[in-house]
């Protein structure tokens, strides 16, 4: 008989963030400041996934995100999918989209950029989305996908 039990149990109301690469799960937790929430959160990681190999999943009870909030995670989890849950049913599915501007999430690749030497909130213009390229608002240098470090 097929085992139909879910690895992570269902929620009644809230948001499920699925298809997070296992290596990015805790970065997503930190970008969304989930450690500051006092509502119920279930986190699963390194679950089997046909698409990603190993994936992470976050179930947030009674939490609903605004687009610009959730889109911040696109930098580390570009193929993450959101399921909005009402009364145990998925009422809406969403994908994340990289925003035009990234504020305070990533680090500038340039070691002599002012943001790496003084307490300044980083700010980037997203100049390319397919292969992510971030242009620093301060030093004007490009940080590309391979060099993105999350603060």
């Amino acid at each position, binding site marked *: 008989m097929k085992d139909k039990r879910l690895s992570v149990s269902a929620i009644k109301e809230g948001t499920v963030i699925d298809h997070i690469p296992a290596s990015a799960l805790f970065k997503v937790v930190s970008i969304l400041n989930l450690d500051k929430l006092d509502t119920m959160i279930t986190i699963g990681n390194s679950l089997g996934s046909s698409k990603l190999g190993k994936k992470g999943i976050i179930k947030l009870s009674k939490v609903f995100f605004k687009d610009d909030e959730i889109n911040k995670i696109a930098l580390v989890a570009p193929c993450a999918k959101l399921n909005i849950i009402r009364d145990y049913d998925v009422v809406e599915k969403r994908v994340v989209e990289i925003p035009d501007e990234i504020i305070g999430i990533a680090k*500038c690749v*340039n070691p*002599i*950029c*002012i*943001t790496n*030497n*003084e*307490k*300044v909130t980083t700010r980037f213009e997203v100049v390319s989305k397919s292969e992510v390229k971030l242009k*620093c*608002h*301060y*030093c*004007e*240098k*490009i940080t590309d996908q391979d060099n993105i470090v999350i603060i």
Partner: protein
Amino acid sequence: MKNKNLVSITDFTREEYLRILELAAEFEAKPRQDILNGYVISTLFFEPSTRTRLSFETAINGLGGRVVGFSDSGATSASKGETLHDTIKMVSNYADLIVMRHPLEGSARLASEVSSVPVVNAGDGANQHPTQTLLDMYSIMKTQGTLENLKIFMVGDLKYGRTVHSLLQAMSKFNPTFYFISPDELKMPPTYKLYLDKTGLNYIEGKDLTEFLPEADIIYMTRVQQERFTDPIEYERVKNAYILRREMLEGTKETMKVLHPLPRVNEIHTDVDASPHAYYFDQARNGVYVRMAILTSILGIK
């Protein structure tokens, strides 16, 4: 342009470039005026600079303004660990405008966001040095009578040279044809070539300095520095190929001028200095008029 910051050359529009150049010509005709009387301008030089600082201070003094500032951060609270943020907050209480040079890239943008008075960037690391670009443009305008449709040669270190990158961005508004002459290691970065492609502007890339010279209206020389090469043998091989000598200028246009942001080391042979094509020392003098134009327009006087 009142109260506008000048941090990056792209902060100004084509019309604003032309307005600055027009004003600079007025100041060149009448360099002693008392229009900055009563103004205090702060020159904060966190790293040493001879030309730029003296040029700014000459411009301010020539117009009757007062200068407060420093030319070496060793003698300031920055050496006690004060942040740039705090220094700028404090100084913007004292001065009507801040001129700043700082070794960290992006520092001028940060200063402009923190300051309650306008900030003029006098160089932030290898990033931007917009007043240099405007004085380069003024020199081009003065010697060619126009900025439009010129053939501009950029020679030497095109990879790291901030002056060539800014000049490229600014001159792109005036339909130029660029010739990029450099060793392979120091070629113009793809970002800028892509920008020209998108703008629909033509450029030619080459390694041989003499090949196209008869076509040039402007030759903009920069220095090929040894420390940019990973392979010292490669440096030895190419170093002499990018030195401009007087005999190379034979057959060039009569109106063609050689520019250089200075300091020169050996990339322009001293025998060029006496040539009618040499313009780099006049170029440095133009800096004073251009800075007068920038300061007075930002202060809303002109």
